[in-house]
């Protein structure tokens, strides 16, 4: 039997799926609906100080669609909660009391002064919430006022605010990181050095989602003007996965709990985040695209896979893939793979041929003996995986490892020994 219960910083929830701080967690009515649907916890929509902020009164979201209008990427210029602080606090208190088994985290963003943080932390403690998340992430609007990403982009500020928070509350402190930075390890290290208990990431990526070519206004358009927003949804998952892995394998931050965020849409996305070192995941866009009921697929999918793969508890997955994430220079240059086309599955669209011919290594035929036929020329194939990436038929082209003989491309014998760039003769700094 698979056990999906999760304990993040000692905060219990029936499953590792939390709703990220965003519109789905902005009000009691939403959060209650989420809990009824089965979500394990929420990070309440970011609270600020009164007078509460205001949002634009026109469109605040934009999207990137596939041809069938599947939402691939999502963009927003929304700010933090636009309701009075007291209203939010009352609702948080009531929801936590009525749903004691669910995780209730409160996201916070106030000006960078110690008294401001001390004051709001006190108020959150009074609600009975389980923890706080410091929003150092929003890339738009609030950052112009010295908050959000403006803090998250300066490691010294992260450390400073984390210290204040640890000083002024006993609640677990999670620092939410912005991806709008060159090297994610620096803010993560600063959070750790400031005493934060965990990091969560990613917040949204600065973006302009599209331009209306009739009006020449960026979208979403407010009276003919637009402003950069924050990008999220399926399109940002690869960015988030890398950042989570970077923190998980960094010696300085190793072992610090991570809450993984960014494009989680299916159970598989979640499992990938967990394998790269996240202890749980947070979801925003998928819920905003399909509604809360997706939690049923997330939980059943994750437990089915865990059962088949022989994992009993969520902790068993966490970080499993981290040891396999390496620097490029550590990769085995003696590993030789060639593309192989399964002729029974091939539908003869020829895309593998034309992309290899035009843009890669001229390693796939278009005709053999005058007949349309697509076949890999091992003498030319460098094993780049482009054909696999563009083939419309799943499993039609696979990369097959060569374990013996010689590589027909280089004429070099296949070696079973591990050998990487650090000892390669072409490397001027070779140690070999």
């Amino acid at each position, binding site marked *: 039997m698979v056990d999906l219960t999760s304990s993040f910083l000692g905060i219990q929830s029936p499953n590792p799926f939390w709703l990220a701080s965003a519109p789905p967690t902005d009000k009691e009515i939403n959060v209650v609906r989420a809990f009824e649907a089965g979500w394990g916890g929420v990070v309440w929509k970011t609270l600020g100080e009164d007078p509460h902020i205001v949002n634009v009164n026109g469109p605040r979201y934009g999207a990137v669609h596939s*041809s069938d209008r599947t939402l691939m990427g999502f963009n927003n210029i929304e700010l933090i909660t636009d309701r009075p602080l007291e209203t939010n606090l009352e609702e948080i208190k009531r929801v936590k009391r009525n749903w004691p088994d669910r995780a209730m985290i409160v996201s916070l963003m106030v000006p960078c002064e110690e008294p401001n943080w001390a004051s709001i932390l006190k108020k959150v403690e009074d609600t009975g919430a389980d923890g706080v998340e410091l929003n150092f992430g929003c890339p738009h609007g609030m950052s112009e006022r010295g908050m959000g990403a403006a803090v998250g982009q300066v490691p010294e500020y992260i450390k400073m605010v984390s210290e204040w928070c640890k000083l002024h509350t006993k609640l677990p402190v999670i620092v939410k990181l912005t991806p709008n930075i060159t090297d994610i390890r620096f803010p993560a290290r600063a959070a750790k050095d400031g005493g934060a208990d965990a990091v969560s990431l990613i917040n949204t990526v600065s973006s302009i989602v599209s331009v209306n070519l009739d009006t020449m206004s960026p979208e979403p358009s407010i009276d003919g003007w637009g402003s950069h927003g924050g990008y999220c949804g399926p399109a940002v998952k690869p960015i988030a996965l890398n950042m989570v892995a970077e923190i998980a394998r960094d010696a300085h931050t190793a072992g610090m709990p991570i809450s993984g965020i960014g494009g989680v849409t299916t159970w598989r996305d979640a499992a990938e985040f967990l394998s790269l070192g996240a202890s749980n995941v947070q979801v925003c866009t998928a819920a905003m695209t399909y509604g809360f009921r997706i939690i049923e697929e997330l939980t059943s999918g994750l437990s089915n896979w865990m059962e088949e793969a022989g994992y009993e508890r969520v902790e068993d997955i966490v970080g499993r893939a981290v040891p396999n994430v390496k620097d490029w220079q550590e990769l085995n240059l003696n590993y030789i793979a060639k593309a192989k086309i399964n002729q029974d599955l091939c*539908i003869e669209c*020829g*895309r593998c041929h034309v992309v290899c011919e035009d843009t890669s290594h001229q390693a796939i035929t278009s005709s053999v003996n005058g007949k349309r036929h697509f076949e890999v020329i091992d003498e030319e194939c460098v094993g780049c995986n482009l054909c696999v990436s563009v083939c419309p038929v799943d499993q039609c082209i696979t990369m097959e490892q060569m374990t013996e003989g010689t590589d027909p491309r280089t004429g070099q014998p296949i070696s079973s020994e591990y050998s990487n760039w650090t000892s390669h003769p072409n490397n001027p700094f070779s140690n070999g």
Partner: protein
Amino acid sequence: MTSQRLQSLTEELHPPLTAHEAGVESDRCYFCYDAPCITACPTGIDIPLFIRQIKADNPKGAAKTIFDENILGGMCARVCPTETLCEQACVRNSQEEKPVRIGELQRFATDTLMDTGRQPYERSADSGKTVAVVGAGPAGLSCAHRLAMHGHSVTIYESKPKPGGLNEYGIAAYKTIDDFAQREVDYVLSIGGIQVEYDQQLGTSVNLSQLKDQFDAVFLGMGLGGTNALNVDGDTPAGVHDAVDFIEALRQAEDPTALDVGRNVVVIGGGMTAIDAAVQSRLLGADDVTLVYRRGQDAMNASEFEQAVAQTHGVLLKTNWQPIQLIADDGQVSGVEFEQTDSANGSLQGTGNKRVFECDRVLLAIGQQFDAADALSGVELQDRRVRVDEYGRTSDAAVWAGGDCVSGGEDLTVSAVQAGKVAALSIHQHLSA
């Protein structure tokens, strides 16, 4: 009842795709290398390119890609048996037995551009050369348009009072609603440099040697005027009609529902014309329509899809029965006697088993034949149609031909368009030399 019938007669088999449907469908195209669908299209339209243009929200560019090869791409999108042409070659068939709906996408693109009333071509500077085109059907129009693009002055001689050929007089009503055939002709002619002389028949009001004298080149695109005669015993009683005439009458009728189509109809034939005549008889109120074909179902010229259309419209298909004689009652047809056949080993043989199919109407759809031979002195024929080479050149160095009137063709609208285009290029080369 009457208006309901009329509506179903002109209700399209495939309603046009919406922009969203076109977007989703276009996304199914793989943009194949050396795409097999292009080879399968008689006019060689760059199908993956036009579909990609639709996908990228550029339907007008898509239409130009289509018109570059096939100026009647709008009609072809409606009447081509795509299931045996481009769509049959789609690689999606091997993957999931569901080709990309190329025909419907082609219609989406061409409709979008045609609705603007603007065609993407301008006539080149006047070449000073003149060409006579006989027949304003698909072959003649395609030839004339391509010649006009190259700056030649074209005069079309058309025996009927209206242009379009079988697009106007033959194609089933439900394939081309809203007077599309005439709108398309206007669109094609809007390039300029093409003059149409109606009610001018080669062989009566004009003759070939006159045309050769007056023009630098002549293109023959007169289709097949005549229809094959039924080889059965006895005189032809009342109530027996040629299917092409029947369809022409209904296409041209002010109120098709007022036509007397009979109550119990026997259609003889196995091609597109037979299917169209049968289905339209049903739509116009005939109680029973039986389509009788002398060979087996797989030998029918009508595609599987068209056979299915007939069946869903309540037409009974009877195969392997050949007509023996027409039976009349007071000079009015009352039945047809058929003999069962065996076509198993290729040759058609009667089995001796005979049977009378009762009816009050017979429609003959047993093929058309070329009937303008007399007007073509000096132009060689082959299999009773005009003999041409791969460029549409006849035995007479000043005369080109294409479409249904030449031998060895496919008798499809799209093939006629291709033949007109190929001949125009050959004529252009000849005139520029």
